[in-house]
């Protein structure tokens, strides 16, 4: 609990309406997008400008009070879950787009600006902001930087770290770090990369300069059905080997295809084991050349059916099933766990075979959706939490899948982050010397461990259980958001 003396000092820094500590005001902040992890915050601070952020940090540093930064609260790893005795620092009110420079192709924005709002604001200049996490309608850029968010276009356009140029960030002792600049590099260490994906552990971001790209002239998608998952996996590698870098390359297995088709009637072929969606974009002629190549490769790779979207409406229809895959699978069972492992693409047939074998061992069905282009696998484990023991079984199964990802040279999290959820799985990914260096990096910025304590990097003595995203009754938090 925070002392009344501390709370009154906090109130002196902010207008009255910017400090919340009545229970009913605090409840909306008790979880992020991973709603099974809940904790009511002691107090919520909603600063309205950078000076207030700095003042709050200085106060907390002086009083040795922990701070958890939070953006839109759409994260999927409990990275922004409140910590007892900490201030929950919500940056949503810092939501101005401060400058747009169409000729330089940059925008300067505050952390609370929504991802999609950036592309909307610059659309008139025929520009856009490339990273497009599935929650882009709601998630904010500060959180995107904290998580190094990706999306379906990562293989071609990169993650957040590839699309930002400059940050204003504050250390816990209230010092401003101006990281990066308006040119293409900066002197000294690459702190821009270090802060991106640091999950609010190193500094609090108050301004981001993002890179904007010209909108592609044209985008077109090809759908291909396969009678064998391994053939579809091989086709992915063959497309890339043919010299095409698709803007999006997605794969679904039989259960996911059937669920999606039953849910949104995208017109997917049903008598197949795997479906690939391959989108190419760019200059008109480039797209024509790539579509030709992709179709040839898919044929040679043994696709049993190939369709090219002939119109924008058809393109969107092809995508509709994939984008609705999570809620669609949510209709098949009362609960599902979503895992977020990344694997080398070549390991896909082996990993899917092992998942299918484990599915039989655990007696729990799995639907697989896969960002095939960048190797990011989202197995959805179906279960019923009302059946005694099923939750524990699903958790154990999920843990095994992530161990499998590490075993084949992959990672426990491709885009959702570690947060609190995968803190134990970090022990499978990293050995003690690496974890110690992570603590060293933390100490270089925040020696008192006041920023987001207990998240992202496990203490060395703690290497225990697994966890995963738990969805009950098909209900996600923010059910209105597409997830893919």
């Amino acid at each position, binding site marked *: 609990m925070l002392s009344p003396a501390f709370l009154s000092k906090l109130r002196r820094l902010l207008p009255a309406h910017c400090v919340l500590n009545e229970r009913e005001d605090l409840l909306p902040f008790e979880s992020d997008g991973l709603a099974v992890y809940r904790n009511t915050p002691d107090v919520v601070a909603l600063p309205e400008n950078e000076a207030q952020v700095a003042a709050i940090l200085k106060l907390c540093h002086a009083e040795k009070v922990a701070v958890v930064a939070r953006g839109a609260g759409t994260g999927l790893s409990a990275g922004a879950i409140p910590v007892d005795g900490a201030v929950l620092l919500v940056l949503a009110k810092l939501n101005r787009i401060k400058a747009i420079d169409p000729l330089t192709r940059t925008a300067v924005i505050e952390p609370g600006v929504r991802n999609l709002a950036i592309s909307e604001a610059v659309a008139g200049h025929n520009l856009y902001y490339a990273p497009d996490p599935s929650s882009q309608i709601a998630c904010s850029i500060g959180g995107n930087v904290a998580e190094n968010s990706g999306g379906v276009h990562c293989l071609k356009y990169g993650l957040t770290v590839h699309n930002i140029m400059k940050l204003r960030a504050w250390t816990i002792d209230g010092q401003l770090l101006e990281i990066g600049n308006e*040119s293409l590099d900066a002197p000294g260490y690459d702190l821009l990369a270090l802060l991106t994906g640091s999950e609010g552990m190193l500094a609090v971001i108050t301004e981001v300069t993002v890179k904007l790209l010209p909108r592609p002239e044209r985008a077109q998608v090809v759908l291909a059905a396969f009678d064998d998952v391994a053939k579809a996996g091989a086709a992915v590698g063959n497309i890339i080997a043919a010299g095409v870098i698709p803007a999006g390359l997605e794969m679904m297995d039989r259960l996911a295809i059937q669920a999606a088709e039953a849910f949104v009637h995208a017109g997917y072929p049903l008598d197949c084991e795997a479906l690939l969606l391959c989108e190419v974009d760019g200059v008109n002629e480039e797209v024509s050349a790539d579509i030709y190549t992709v179709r040839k490769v898919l044929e040679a790779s043994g696709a049993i059916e190939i369709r090219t979207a002939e119109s924008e409406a058809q393109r969107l229809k092809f995508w509709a099933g994939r984008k609705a895959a999570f809620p669609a699978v949510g209709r098949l069972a009362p609960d599902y766990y979503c895992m977020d492992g990344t694997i080398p693409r070549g390991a896909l047939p082996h990993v899917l075979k092992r998942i299918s074998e484990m599915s039989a061992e655990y007696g729990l069905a799995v639907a697989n959706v896969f960002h095939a282009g960048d190797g990011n696998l989202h197995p959805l484990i179906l279960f019923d939490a009302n059946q005694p023991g099923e939750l524990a079984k699903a958790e154990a199964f999920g843990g095994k899948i992530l161990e499998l990802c590490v075993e084949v040279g992959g990672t426990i999290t491709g885009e959702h982050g570690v947060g609190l959820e995968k803190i134990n799985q970090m022990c499978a990914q990293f050995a003690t010397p690496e974890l110690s260096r992570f603590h060293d990096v933390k100490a270089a910025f925040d020696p008192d461990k006041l920023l987001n304590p207990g998240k992202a990097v496990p203490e060395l003595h703690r290497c225990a259980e697994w966890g995963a995203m738990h969805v009950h009754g098909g209900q996600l938090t923010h059910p209105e958001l597409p997830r893919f």
Partner: protein
Amino acid sequence: MLDTLIERIRAAHESNTPLIIQGGGSKTFYGNADEGEVLSTRALAGIVDYQPKELVLTARAGTPLAEIEGLLAEQNQMLAFEPPHFGGPATLGGCIAAGLSGPRRPYAGAARDFVLGVRMVDGTGQPLRFGGQVIKNVAGYDVSRLMVGALGTLGLITEVSLKVLPKPAAESTLQFELDEATAILKMNQWAGQPLPLSATSWHAGLLTLRLSGAASAVQVAQAKLGGEALKDAAAFWQRLRDQATPFFDKRPIWRLAVKPTTPPLNLGDAQWIEWGGAVRWLASNRPAANLREAAKSAGGHATLFRGAAPADGVFAPLAPALLGVHRNLKQRFDPRGIFNRGRLYSDF
């Protein structure tokens, strides 16, 4: 081989002996003077793994860049950041430690953008592994990218995994006679359109621009932009990448990294512009303070790239808060400061 290096580093840590990490020695001119015994990575060579379909290559630090590029070319792939060799036997380790990129950088990304993972040995002799061989990975802090451009001051890079890309099917280079201001404007206007740009340069009244992509896309863009096609374009870009033109023989050579749309700096010195306007190479004897101020007010920073280092060092001094973080990181990764002492900043 790795064990021998680790032994030497442990011994150097024990005895507080500074070491100079050296690969092919192609970039010894870059950075501040350092002190110590040479620790060569040349024997730590060889490609560990290359999966063209995964777009991932892993090689040991001492592997020559030329060998890597040769192997990639056999599969019609490339290092998209077009790293400079500077006419020497540049190695992968040096390439990543220096973090320098070539003409394709503004359009394809920098060296740091393609690093997926590193193996390294820290200043106590502890081998470490960060990142991996997959494109999407958000587990733990991004220490791999922290090593890029750190000039070896945080540790000895022993192995690097890189994302590689297919070579474009076709390339074409166009030249336009344009004054500096117009050239800067054009480079930025064109970069904001869906054109397959892959390199830009302006020097002595001539804008040179490279297009890369499907043959049809390059043809259409060429028709749209006009200009004169340059023959022997590959040699032009390679000479620029490696600074193998007489302009770069001048001393000192300053590198001003600026906001790309910065109008002509009008400093009255010989100049070569690259990266869509974001880099202005100057052959200038002006005081370092003037050039640093010019770069800073243009949103960037100035580096003494070749020539005698000014009193405040080769690289733009860091603001106190940033310098503090740098010192802390250095202290944690190399507590006795044995690696490349003084190469990046004089106090570590």
